[in-house]
């Protein structure tokens, strides 16, 4: 009897996991004892961190795309299709294009984040973003032509992917205009929904003085009630009105509907044990990356480390051994602090982040990692 492992979603988490299992369970897969199927509805793998550089004219969206067929091990059964139904009691899935049901023995949900700008009136119409290919390209058109006025970076939704990215954009746009001799004509404004500039108090404590030193205007406790594209204002739940000439937002995020419909968690995030990554509401179901509601950032490094844990646990289970691998909350982020300097943080459930002093070396380390990411996706790095 062949054991069937199904992975839903081929972002960083799903792709790294598939390649890890292809290596770890090579013998069992070749013998026909295990089959691993990876579902994704896009034939490409997308590396989203590239989008931060698109508005500045430094990268193209296609730099962040590679065909999954080139990245995923041949031992993996790669299906370009979408899972539409999940019955975790019957251990069955239905797909958009396939007939009948798909049985699984082990299921991993790595469906990631989607943007939900429609939850705030006016946001889709008025706000640019760099959290999508289309958004980053549209922002590039306006940012490259922008020479005076108020650029407002507003974090509208949280949690969101890559919690460092709003800070990075604010620091980069400040430095970018400064280097071009336009900073005196451009106001840079940053808004955040809670009482500090970042969700993590240690990162907020580090970033706030840098923002003050750079003359970045900060508004906290800003939660957009609506955006008025005609008046070019953000009207907030706190009763304020913030003017903008160019609005860049981090839109609200949500997971896919499949998760809530299957009763595994709210808003598309699966309730999991934060160490084993097992779903709390179903047997033999894991979630990882953005999909797993662990409280750690929705970041590629998290998905990468979690994929290794889930691969070890599934391999142990397949071999009839106790699964002992656990996730400790490990998170790693580079944080651009300008166009040619960056900081770096590493933290976990027990150890808070302590941002490294910004340096050119860390900036080039970030760009180097972005280039070598494709080795990570292949399971080699």
């Amino acid at each position, binding site marked *: 009897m062949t054991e069937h492992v199904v992975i839903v979603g081929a972002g960083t988490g799903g792709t790294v996991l598939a390649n890890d299992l292809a290596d770890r369970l090579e013998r069992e897969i070749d013998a026909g004892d295990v089959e691993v199927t990876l579902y994704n509805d896009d034939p490409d793998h997308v590396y989203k961190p590239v989008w931060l550089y698109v508005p500045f004219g430094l990268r193209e969206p296609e730099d962040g795309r590679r065909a999954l067929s080139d990245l995923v091990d041949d031992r993996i059964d790669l299906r370009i299709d979408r899972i539409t139904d999940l019955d975790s009691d019957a251990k069955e899935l239905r797909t958009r294009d396939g007939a009948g049901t798909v049985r699984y023995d082990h299921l991993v949900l790595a469906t990631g984040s989607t943007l939900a700008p429609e*939850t705030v009136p006016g946001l889709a119409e008025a706000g640019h973003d760099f959290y999508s290919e289309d958004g980053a390209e549209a922002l590039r058109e306006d940012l490259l032509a922008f020479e005076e006025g108020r650029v407002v970076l507003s974090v509208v939704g*949280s*949690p969101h992917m890559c919690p460092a990215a709003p800070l990075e954009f604010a620091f980069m746009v400040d430095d970018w205009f400064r280097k071009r001799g336009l900073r005196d004509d451009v106001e840079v404004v940053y808004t955040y*929904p*809670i*009482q500090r500039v970042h*969700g993590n*108090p240690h990162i907020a404590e580090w970033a706030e003085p840098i923002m003050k030193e750079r003359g970045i205007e900060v508004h906290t*406790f800003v*939660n957009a*009630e609506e955006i008025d594209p005609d008046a070019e204002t953000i009207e907030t*739940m*706190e*009763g304020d009105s913030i003017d903008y000439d160019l609005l860049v937002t981090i839109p609200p995020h949500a997971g896919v509907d499949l998760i809530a419909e299957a009763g595994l968690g709210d808003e598309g995030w699966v309730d999991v044990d*934060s160490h084993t990554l097992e779903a709390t509401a179903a047997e033999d179901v894991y979630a990882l990356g953005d999909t797993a*509601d662990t*409280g*750690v950032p929705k970041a590629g490094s998290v998905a990468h480390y979690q994929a290794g844990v889930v691969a070890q646990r599934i391999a142990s289970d397949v071999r009839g051994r106790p699964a002992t691998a656990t996730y400790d909350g490990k998170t790693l982020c580079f944080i651009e602090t300008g166009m040619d300097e960056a900081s770096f943080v590493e933290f976990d459930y027990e150890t808070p982040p302590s941002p490294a002093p910004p340096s050119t070396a860390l900036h080039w380390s970030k760009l180097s990692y972005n280039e070598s990411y494709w080795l990570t996706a292949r399971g080699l790095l």
Partner: protein
Amino acid sequence: MPSPDIDPATIVDARGASCPGPLMDLIGAIRGIDSEAVVKLLSDNEQSLTDVPEWAEESGNEVLEVEGAEDHYAIYVQKA
């Protein structure tokens, strides 16, 4: 025990969420309810005891009551 006349329109269970998850969940719930309706926020994060009143004051909403249970808090917030 909560006042018997507090009838929450919605209950947000943010237990297990790290900061600022509970506050953001509360803000999301307040966004979706009518004026004068009440959200009951369940949180086991002590930071919520300061985050939530600070935001409520800033936004003009009102913390009606805070209950302390064995392993979590229940905070009742009324939308202005």
